[in-house]
């Protein structure tokens, strides 16, 4: 469980707070989307979830423990953060070692490390590259490798910062599949993204941030219907919600994916035939 209680944060030397009065509780088995304009404080917020940043005022507790009381490594074991740019973490000589890096840091035994790395390589279709330098992988593969290197230590919370940037359709499909599978294992996935279509497909609990404060925290269906809040946070509507806006009351709920939209429209066109 991640608990955030009246969190205020500012960088040393700065005058203004980047985060103001953030209150949050995130439990296990949730999908959470965090959205907001550039510079709204999203990345600063998620860096509090494993203790990389400590609150200037207020508290962040991970499974009941204040992030000021333990090391980043201690919290990272439970909360895995995958940053946007793979270039900021890839350094090993081989793909295998890149995945094993964190497992070694966390002090797992050799046997378990081997087992976990093997699993991660297979799960992410990277086995054929295991002895290759990770720098030679394509952009999409590098992103997959970063996710693999975090999932390998089996954290309870997985935080993804802009996972869809530069990703094509097939890679996005795969990502959604992985997120859904993680949820069935009672993990929590937190996705920070600008990609409204991707967020809509996840149907998450949605947290909107603007200017360092939480503007709205709730069900993504109701938030995406609320024009004034979206306007305030600089977020556009997913096409399927637009469709609902245009056709309401002919359809009663925004469809969650194209298949549902298709069956709704089909019903409309057929029902009246």
């Amino acid at each position, binding site marked *: 469980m991640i608990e955030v209680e009246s969190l205020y944060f500012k960088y040393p030397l700065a005058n203004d707070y980047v985060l103001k009065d953030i209150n949050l509780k995130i439990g296990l088995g949730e999908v959470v989307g965090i959205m907001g304009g550039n510079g709204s404080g999203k990345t600063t917020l998620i860096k509090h979830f494993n203790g990389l940043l400590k609150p200037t005022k207020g508290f962040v507790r991970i499974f009941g423990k204040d992030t000021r009381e333990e090391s980043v490594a201690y919290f990272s074991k439970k909360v895995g953060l995958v940053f946007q740019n793979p270039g900021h973490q890839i350094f090993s000589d081989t793909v295998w070692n890149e995945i094993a890096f964190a497992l070694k840091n966390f002090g797992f035994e050799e046997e378990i490390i081997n087992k976990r790395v093997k699993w991660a390589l297979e799960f992410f279709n990277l086995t054929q590259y295991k002895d290759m330098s990770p720098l030679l992988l394509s952009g999409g593969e590098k992103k997959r490798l970063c996710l693999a290197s975090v999932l390998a230590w089996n954290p309870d919370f997985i935080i993804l910062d802009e996972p869809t940037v530069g990703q094509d359709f097939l890679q996005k499909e795969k990502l959604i599949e992985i997120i859904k599978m993680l949820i069935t294992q009672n993990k929590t996935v937190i996705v920070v993204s600008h990609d*409204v279509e991707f967020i809509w497909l996840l149907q998450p609990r949605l947290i909107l941030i603007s200017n360092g404060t939480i503007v709205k925290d709730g069900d993504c269906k109701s938030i995406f219907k609320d024009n004034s809040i979206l306007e305030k946070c600089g*977020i556009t509507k997913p096409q399927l919600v637009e469709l609902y806006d*245009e056709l309401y009351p002919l359809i009663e709920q925004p469809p969650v994916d194209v298949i549902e939209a298709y069956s709704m429209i089909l019903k409309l*066109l057929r029902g009246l035939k």
Partner: protein
Amino acid sequence: METLTEIIRFINFSFSYSGSNSPILKNINLLIEEGDFVLLVGPSGCGKSTLLRCINGLIPHLYNGVYEGEVIVDGEPVKNKSVNELATKVGFVFQNPENQIFMFSVEKDIVFGLENIGLDKTEIDDRLSWVLRALDIEHLRYKPPYELSDGQKQRVAIAGVLAMKPKILILDEPTSLLDPRTALEFISLLKELNRKFGLTIIAVEHRIDLLTNVANRMVVMDKGEIVFNGCLKDVIENKNLNLHGVNVPPVIALQNYLRNEGFIFDAFYLNVKEFSKEIKRRLLEID
């Protein structure tokens, strides 16, 4: 309609980077006309970025490799043109504008390119005030890059190349770092540049729903080859697009499903509003 003139042409073009044994571009034939707004898509690693770099001469002038066939820009082969001349024909906006702004103020950064091509003071003055006005960034004139938001940086990057008065503007995933609203604003700016100044635009973009209402041409690449090429409306209705890694916008995918089921539409609707209007019209008809 005015007569269209050719601006870019690839003729049986192939390229492989030196040191690599497989070609990154294979037998490309492509014609782009002046004033076109081309949406270029394809899975990562398909050769899109390489193709763009062949147009503004980074290939072969900066990167070496095996260069076969011909790329013709504004009537002359790229490989015969000097980089200097190409810079005034083709503007290139990269994915990360941070790496494209060199100077400590917006004005000085715009002037940088103009000094490079050896313009005199009065000409620089003219172009400077023109480009600041055209992109609506007069208020940013004296700001340093670290005081600019991401969207503003993207505009400044465009200003820097637009001041060189190019005929072609190339953008490599220009909105990938922008939030949804800023991205939309940016796209409408591109539309204006295309319509108002007749600028030929070629944009690589993964979120193609942003561009379906502004682009008129669409080119799909996969594994170094062009798989689809034509009028955007014709290309986008192709059912196999997602197999080539293209993020087909939901409203398009929806129409494909309905067509499969035997519902024929007069036209292919690119945005939700028009599509919904058509659905409503049909329902009334049935009534």
